[in-house]
Each structure stands twice: as C-alpha cells, then as structure tokens.
C-alpha cells in the first residue's frame, strides 16, 4: 500500500537530500533501510483505515473494546454487561431492561470471550457474542451498530466461563458452570460437595437472527469445574467440547486439592444426538426462571422478559450424548483446528499439549474403548483417541489458535511465550516471548475454519504489564502485543495497552463489516413510544407526580428550552429525540443534579432521562457533545417550584410558548 511506504520513502528521500543538498537527484540506494521494519508494518497514515477490526473482551470492565489492526488504535468501547455513563447505557430508561436478571438489576459483569457469528464455519460479520461470567449471561452485539442488542440469562449455573464458543453456523452458543453448585439451588453444607454439587452444560439457540435467543437445553453433569469450550467444525460439526478440572471435586483449597489427579477431562457433547433426544421427549422439564432482554433498533427501547422452564437432559438416560476424553493436568483451553480433526487440550500444569483426534474418538466410541463410566458418561481410553503430544519445552500452556497453513500457536503463561508448532508433525517450529505472562492469543479467523489471509497477525493478551509503558500508579493497563506471523518466524511488531482485562479477542477483515454500518436512524422509522418527530409536537405533560417532557434536539437548540411548572418530588422524564439525519451528529443531554448520567442520543433516536429535583430553583440543561459552532448555546432552563405549590406547566422555545 502506497501510504504505508510514505514514511519510509520520505526517510529515504530525506537521506538523499541530506547527502546531496537541494536540487540534485541522487542514485536510489537501499542498504540498511531496505529491509522491512516493524514501524512500517503497523503505520496507518492519517486518514487511512486499519485492515482489521479486533474485538477484545473487557474482562472485569464487563465491556467489549474494538481496536483497529495493525495500528492498535482504540475505535470504540461497547457497553455490554456494565453501566456506561458515557453513553447512558444502563442509566437511561431504554437500556435499563438490558441488565435485568432474576437477581434483579445487575450493573456489572465479568465479560470473557468474544466470538464472531459464523456461516459455514467462516466469520460472517453479522454479530459478536460474549459471555458474562459472574451472573451467567450471553450477549449479542450487532455489528451494524456496534451496540448490545440482546442478552439471555443462563439459569441453573454459576460462573459461565466456557462460553459462548458457538457452532459453525451459529446454531448454538454454549455455556457451562465454572463453579458447581446445588442444582436446583438449595441450602446444603459446603462439605457435602460430592453429594450435592452439580454442573450444567447449556446450549443456547437463536444466534442466527436477532430477538430469539433462548435456552435450547441443559445437560446435568458431574460437579466438576467446567473451564473452556470449543465447538466442532468441518468433520466434527455437531459436537462441542468442554474442558474440566477439579474432577477431584474439592470444595476448598482448590489450588492444591483440585490438582491431584494426573488427568482431568474434555467433555465431548454430541448436540445432534441431543436434538434427537429432545425430539423423542427424553428430557426433564424444570421450572427454572431466567431473563431474555432485547433491544429493538426501531423502538430504540429494550424489553426484559422473564422466561420460565428449561429442558434438561440426563446423560445416564441419553446414551451417546456425551463422553469424557482424559486429558492431562487440569486442562484450560480446548481448541479445534480449522479442519475440525484435532482437539487440542492445554494442560495448564503440564509442559506438553495433548492433541486428540476426532476420527479416533469416533472409532473409540464405535469400538467401545471405555475405561470407566462416571454418572452415565463413558470415559474413553486415552491412548485410543490421542493423535499426538506436542513436547513444547514451555510451561503452563493455555490456549491455541491456528493459521491457514497447518500450524498451531499456543500461549504459555508460566514461561510467558508463544510456541508455533506443526499440526502435521507436532514438532515445535518457532517460539517468541510475550510481555508478560500471556493468557489468550488471537489470530483473526484463527478460531474459525478460515483464518483471514491465512493468518497474517497474532495478538497476545498478557496478564502482567510491569515495565512496558509509562507507570500509572499501582494499577497498570493490561498489555497486548501484535505479531506478524506471515513468515516462518514470528515477529513482534507493536505493543499497546488495553481496557479492563481482555480474555480473548477475535478479529475480522475490516472489509467484511465496514460498509454495513448504520450511520443514523431514519426519523420515519422511529417507533419509540415517546418519540417527538417535529418541534410542533413538543410538549410537557403532567400525570400525577410524573412529568413527561417530549423534547427534540438539533444543531443547536432544544425544543423546548424553557420549562416551568415542575415541583419538588416530581419524577421528570425527558424523552428526547435527536432530529438530525446525518452521520456523526449525536447530541447529549445533561441536567443539573441528575442522579444517573447523561443521555447520548444518536441521530434519529429517542432516549429518556429520569430527573428527580430535590429542591426549588432553576436548573440548566445542556448538550454535552460539541455539535456545532453554537454548541455552547445549546442549553435550556427548567424551573422547580415548592412541593405544595400549584404551578402551571409551561414550555417554550423563543417566541413559541405553550401552557
């Protein structure tokens, strides 16, 4: 690309000028400047676009961040499971329902694994899904608006970590219990773990189209800790895989007591078999409650629906539904290669990777190579399903992604490095350090059947930052590194800070989604219950102690901008419609003394701020998003009278005053 070479060319030309002075043309030289440099590879000139979107989970921020690659520039923070005062998410009346659960309104979560929607195993650029670990939920982000539009809660679960790891056509999103608990919940002694604690594996349907995410079925499983997941693809389409640890079933001092056994398991679930059992009615109907919350881009409003009842499958009653694959040393990540044949388990207390073969697994099932049966779940013979072991030389393997050239790339936490290995020979090909203590890694498309550009970039997400950036007190932004993996050797290109604690990220070629972006919402399509489409329709209406302000905004005034007749103790709802019909002209609304946040209203959208004045007086409101040369003039006043007074409602703009 021409612009990428601009800096380099200037440098070259500059050196010639320095050497020859003005007016002379020197001979082209290459020399020391001729080889590629990391700076050139990540330089995106002003006004140019990155070639990839990379979506990072926010970890304990509960959100998602979108970065551009290769520059590492932050493009947007997308609120998902946590309140975001900047956008009014969870503060305005329209988005409050998004955070409803059976535990009530939950303003925070721990977001973990972003997964892009797939068609035929390839990222289709429609949606991004991500799980909330603490209050088990899965959210959908629409990649036309980069907004969270749907959240479904997962009942009978604690800690949704192995999630959402969707199937190759987004048929199902999956989840499982990181923490086993009594299911259904009950009051039991903690030391009755082995007797009373169970896990669930959950399949969620409705990923392909917005609005209908729901629990398809749950499987009641032994009370281990279920850690991470991966759904099959290609030859293994129809199966999903979940790692377990704590098959010891310890309930205390787990770092020691859950690390006793030589092998734990990867649970292999045949979800097509599950569909057969469901069709045959071989399930239990449990009265579990959970929320399904959906945000509609036409009403600009979310609704929270309480759902009741889930279908539960019991493995002992459903032969062939699931198997355990013995896997050494408390496996963390389980990752399936692009063809679907290899199931890579990263035993986090091991130096080696265990690579299971899907075809050998099927053969072992058919030949009944079963070593033991746990709660009706056959444990397959380890040697019968093993494709190979990668002797890495590293310690603490966690996660593996793949390029399109037959290689795996595995992160090693303890030795803080990435190891590249061959899926053909299982031999290590290259290794490169990560700074420091890498968790997940991401190759755009590397979790799908088609890594983009056969795997050009790789991101390391690191748990420890220490000395990578200017220090910022005790807390440091987590670090990420970008590598070029297009050649034989991995090459570190860039180091950049991230938001929260990214657990995994997925990238997609920018061209797949950038032209689908919504630029504004057409006013004609606005179906908000309290929309105001013209200034002629603006009004202020009292209903008991509720006052509804139907207002509009456009560069650079509110209508109305004078409001009187409010009393102390009123609940004032500002329903504000942004009348702009142009890209990148949001307006904000801040009201003095508001106990929630601002509104940040996109063109054509309506949002509502609840304002409860505590004392008499006159309060200003204003636009928070610098919108025009007269932005500072975009303001209004609202007058608040005594609680026991009887002031007349009055509103206006300029010479138009109404009572």
């Amino acid at each position: 690309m021409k612009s990428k070479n601009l800096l380099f060319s200037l440098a070259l030309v500059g050196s010639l000028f320095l050497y020859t002075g003005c007016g002379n043309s020197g001979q082209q030289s290459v020399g020391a400047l001729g080889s590629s440099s990391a700076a050139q590879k990540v330089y995106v000139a002003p006004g140019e676009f990155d070639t990839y979107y990379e979506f990072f989970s926010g970890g304990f921020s509960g959100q998602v961040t979108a970065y551009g690659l290769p520059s590492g520039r932050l493009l947007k923070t997308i609120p998902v499971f946590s309140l975001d005062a900047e956008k009014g998410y969870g503060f305005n009346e329209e988005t409050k329902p998004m955070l409803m659960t059976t535990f009530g309104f939950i303003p925070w979560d721990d977001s973990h694994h972003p997964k892009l929607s797939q068609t035929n195993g390839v990222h289709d650029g429609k949606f991004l899904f991500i799980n909330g670990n603490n209050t088990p939920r899965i959210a959908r982000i629409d990649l036309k608006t980069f907004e969270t539009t749907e959240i479904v809660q997962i009942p009978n679960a604690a800690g949704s970590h192995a999630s959402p790891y969707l199937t190759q056509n987004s048929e199902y999103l999956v989840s499982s219990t990181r923490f086993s608990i009594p299911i259904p919940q009950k009051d039991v002694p903690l030391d009755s773990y082995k007797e009373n604690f169970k896990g669930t594996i959950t399949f969620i349907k409705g990923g392909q189209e917005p609005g209908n995410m729901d629990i398809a079925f749950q499987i009641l499983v032994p009370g281990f800790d279920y850690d991470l997941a991966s759904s099959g693809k290609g030859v293994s389409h129809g199966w999903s895989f979940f790692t377990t640890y704590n098959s010891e079933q310890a309930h205390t001092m787990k770092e020691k007591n859950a690390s006793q056994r030589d092998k734990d398991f990867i649970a292999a679930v045949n979800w097509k078999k599950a569909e057969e059992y469901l069709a045959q009615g071989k399930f239990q109907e449990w009265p579990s409650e959970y929320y399904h919350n959906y945000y509609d881009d036409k009403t600009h409003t979310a609704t929270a629906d309480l759902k009741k009842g889930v279908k539960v499958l019991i493995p002992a009653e459903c032969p062939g539904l699931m198997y355990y694959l013995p896997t050494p040393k408390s496996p963390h990540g389980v990752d399936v290669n692009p063809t679907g044949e290899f199931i890579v388990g990263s035993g986090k207390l091991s130096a080696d990777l265990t690579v299971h073969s899907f075809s050998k697994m099927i053969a072992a099932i058919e030949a009944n190579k079963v070593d033991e049966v746990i709660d009706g779940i056959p444990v397959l013979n380890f040697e019968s399903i093993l494709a190979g072991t990668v002797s890495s030389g590293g310690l603490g393997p966690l996660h593996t992604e793949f390029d399109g050239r037959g290689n795996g790339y595995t992160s090693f936490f303890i030795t803080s490095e990435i190891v590249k290995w061959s899926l053909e020979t299982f031999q290590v090909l290259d290794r490169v350090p990560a700074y420091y203590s890498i968790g997940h890694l991401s190759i755009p498309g590397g979790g799908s059947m088609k890594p983009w550009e056969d795997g050009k970039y790789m991101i390391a997400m690191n748990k420890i930052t220490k000395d990578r950036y200017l220090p910022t007190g005790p807390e440091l932004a987590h670090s990420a590194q970008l590598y070029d993996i297009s050649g034989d050797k991995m090459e570190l290109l860039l180091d950049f800070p991230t938001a929260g604690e990214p657990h995994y990220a997925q990238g997609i070629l920018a061209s797949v989604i950038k032209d689908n972006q919504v630029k504004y919402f057409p006013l004609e399509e606005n179906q908000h219950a309290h929309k105001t489409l013209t200034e002629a329709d603006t009004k202020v209406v009292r209903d008991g102690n509720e006052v509804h302000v139907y207002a509009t905004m456009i560069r650079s005034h509110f209508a109305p901008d004078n409001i009187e007749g409010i009393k102390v103790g009123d609940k004032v709802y500002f329903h504000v419609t942004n009348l702009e019909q142009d890209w990148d002209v949001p307006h904000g609304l801040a009201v003095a003394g508001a106990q929630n946040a601002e509104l940040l209203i996109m063109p054509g959208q309506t949002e509502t701020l609840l304002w409860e004045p505590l004392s008499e007086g006159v309060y200003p409101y204003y636009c928070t998003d610098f919108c025009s040369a007269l932005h500072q003039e975009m303001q209004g006043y609202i007058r608040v009278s005594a609680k026991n007074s009887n002031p007349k409602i009055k509103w206006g703009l300029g010479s138009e005053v109404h009572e």
Partner: protein
Amino acid sequence: MMNSKLIISFAIAAIALMSACGGSSGESKGKFAPPPMAKPLTYEEAVADWQNQKGLGPITSVELGDFDDVLAKKGEEIYKLKCTACHMPNEDKVGPAPHGVLKRRTPEWIMNMILNPEAMAMKDPIARGLLGKYNTVMANQGLTQDDARAVLEYFRTLD
C-alpha cells in the same frame, strides 16, 4: 537495520528540506477540507448574480415544468419532518424562511443547499454569506435527490 526513530527523524528532515526547496509539503486528507483562501465572488456580487448561481453539489440542472400538487404535498411532509426545527415557512427562525425563495435563488442552488450544506457553507459565496448572517451551518438532513425535489416543489407554493 535502522530503527524506527531514526527513520522518522529522516522523514521529518525530508519534509523540512523539501519544503525549503519549494516542494509541496503534502495536502491534508478527508472530507472536511479547509475553505479556499480566495473567493471568486463576494456575497453581494453573488446575490446580484443569483440567476446564474447554481451552488455546489449533485444538481446541475432542474426543469421545474408544470406545478405538481402531489409532489408539493409530499415535499411539505418531508419539510415538516426534517426542516421545521430550524425553518418556519414564512418567518426566520434558526435559518431563513423559504417564503419567496424561488425569487432569490435558482432551483439548482436550493437543492444543492439541501443536499450538500457543509460544502456549500464553505465554498459557495451566497451560502457562506448566509452563514455569516445566521451563524450556524445548515444540518444535512439526509434527504435523497427525490426528497429535495419534492421540497423544492413545496417551496413553489410559498411564493
């Protein structure tokens, strides 16, 4: 291999030297280009010459033809929804009233003003003069060319 700081230093030196020698220092990118330094006409000159002023934008020629009542009604609806926050039909509000506008502006200028207000405010002598008078750049309300044509037909009823 030369490190990146050194390359950037060379790049800066190159720009400085090339500029000093009269070379171009490159032009800025993006849709919001700075306004031109010299205007071809003053506001007064352009207003006096309004019958030849077609503005800047996608519209180069409009044949008004016979008055189309249905089209004007459609234009009025669009105008009410998209324009009345700033323009009352018969009196100034945030911006000027369209009453009698066809006696002051060409149909092409009017449609370009609706469809391309940012560039008009920067580069068109009349629009730039109006910005001085009304202080605010007109919002682009996302009308299609057909929408703008309908609004123009509605303006014919305001003469």
